């Protein structure tokens, strides 16, 4: 397998804090790697190093086989970057933003115009192409930003939290665009705080926390790492919750979490479920709800790090206009 992105032992320090503390990454050609982690986990730092914007203090990385420090210029001609905020010149029109990039990439004026028109069409911005970007909604700006990173037909695309601050509809639209790029054979490294996003898009996922990779694998593999499945039992009579707790603890050897009138526990061996049911039946406990499901990535994250991935804080940047659903 050939790798479009490879990193070994990346370290980046800011004073005393280690933003990256020995990160290894590999993205095979044509695949999408999801880098999942909370704010401050080091995701953006890693992307900035791979996109040649930041020098690592330790370790090495290559993109398309070129070293990101020694052959930075070659790396730059292979990559596209879309950052956390829409990096477009707001005073320029959509067309001008894209033509500018095209000209910087040495396209002729005519080719730059043609490429701009093509991309605006593809991103559903053709009608807005003649308007200044400051009049665009948040979702439109992100699409223009993504279009700008595609002008040079990159082989490797870095998407740093591309949907942070977008409303659900714009987010789903952007996912569609990313899938389209995957179909074109582009290698993508996408960072996100959203577990659902990684689950939806990524072939492989690595989980960052405090500048380290704490887990990696496919979405299913990750879900299988912690207790595999989740058992939830809600007794008809809430007074029976204590009994449910005792039965589960006795049979699984693990204490369930009690909240909202139900008991939740990770279960590695699903064959134990019938025993729990029989035992509850013997005790006269009627279950209003009993479910066995795969653990979500959220629970995986919680199990891996001891804290939830998605910050409760409002991520949407107040300066960005939200797209108004039609």
């Amino acid at each position, binding site marked *: 397998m*050939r790798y*479009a992105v490879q990193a070994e032992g990346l370290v980046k320090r800011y004073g005393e804090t280690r933003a990256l503390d020995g990160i290894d990454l590999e993205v095979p*050609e*044509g695949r999408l790697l999801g880098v999942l982690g909370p704010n401050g986990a080091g995701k953006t730092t890693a992307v*900035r190093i791979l*996109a*040649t*914007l*930041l*020098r690592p203090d330790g370790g090495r990385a290559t993109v*398309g*086989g*070129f070293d990101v420090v020694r*052959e*930075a*210029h*070659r790396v*730059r*001609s*292979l*990559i596209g*970057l879309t*950052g*956390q*905020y*829409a*990096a*477009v*010149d*707001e*005073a*320029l*029109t959509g067309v*001008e933003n894209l033509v*500018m*990039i095209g*000209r*910087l*990439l*040495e*396209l002729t004026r005519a080719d730059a115009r043609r490429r701009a028109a093509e991309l605006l069409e593809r991103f559903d911005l053709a009608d807005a192409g003649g308007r*200044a970007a400051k009049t665009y909604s948040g979702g439109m700006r992100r699409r223009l930003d993504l279009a*700008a*990173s595609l002008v*040079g*037909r990159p*082989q490797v695309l870095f998407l740093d939290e591309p949907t942070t601050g977008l409303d659900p509809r714009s987010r789903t639209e952007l996912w569609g665009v990313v899938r389209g790029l995957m179909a*074109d*054979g*582009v*290698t993508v490294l996408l960072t996100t705080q959203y577990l659902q996003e990684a689950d939806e898009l990524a072939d492989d996922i690595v989980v960052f926390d405090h500048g380290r990779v704490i887990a990696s694998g496919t979405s299913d593999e990750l879900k299988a790492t912690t207790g595999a499945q989740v058992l939830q039992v809600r007794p008809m009579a809430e007074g029976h919750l204590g009994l449910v707790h005792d039965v589960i603890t006795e049979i699984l050897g693990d204490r369930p979490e009690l909240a909202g009138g139900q008991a939740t526990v990770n279960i590695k061996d699903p064959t134990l479920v019938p025993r729990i049911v029989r035992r509850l039946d013997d005790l006269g406990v009627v279950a209003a709800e009993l479910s066995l499901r795969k653990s979500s990535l959220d629970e995986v994250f919680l199990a891996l790090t001891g804290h939830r991935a998605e910050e409760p804080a409002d991520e949407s940047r107040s300066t960005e206009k939200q797209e108004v659903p039609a």
Partner: protein
Amino acid sequence: MTTLTGTTAVQTLHNRVGPAAGVRHTLTLAWRSLVQIKHNPMELLDLSVQPIMFLLLFTYVFGGAIAGSTSDYLQFSLPGLVVQNMLFATLTTAIGLSTDINKGVFDRLRSLPIARSAPLAGRIVADTLKQVWAFALFLGLGTVLGFRVHTGPFGVLGALALLLGFALAMSWLSVLIGLVAADPEKVQIMAFSIMMPITFTSNAFVPTKTLPEWLQRWVEVNPVTHLADGVRGLLTGGPVANHVLVSAIWGVAIVLIFVPLSLRAFRARG
């Protein structure tokens, strides 16, 4: 080198940007700073309001009190106003740079295979053209109000060259401010608190001998004084060489101090 899809548009597989390409990148980015004026002519007005306002206010409000007549004062103050405006205008570079950094445009540009100097150089080229515009506006409006050039076209060009030369040196201070300031508003505050005292403690607006003696000593070394006197000499006649020399020494000193500092701040970002 690996190939993924047949459609890659990798223009260059060299690890460097040639000088000709560097110039093209700079011009594209200068175009980017100027093209906004095309569909937002208010930008041009923004560039012009301060020169017009200051020229009118200084001439008609202070003229009588300072020089006894508005026309005499205009002849004295216009070169000073031109210098003051040039210094303030160097900060457009800082504001533009700070905006780019905050919006992420700066990172986007740095992730492209272009000359490393182009984002800065492009701004400076565009801002230099704005300086030329402001100078022309001052001379045009000044002439309408009664200002007279006593030298000739070479004097005017000399004055412009002196102003642009010093503006280029100052733009390195501006680059440093743009790189270290948290946001464009902070740039404005920093700029104001540096430029106001420097321009007013000079002979740009009042003759040195009217000032307290301790202040006169600073005024005599202040580069604004020498720039103003240099521009006066080049536009209305009088000694020039010494003022140009002192201005040039200041310009070189500013470059020697702020180029390393700016480059360090530039590298600290990446």
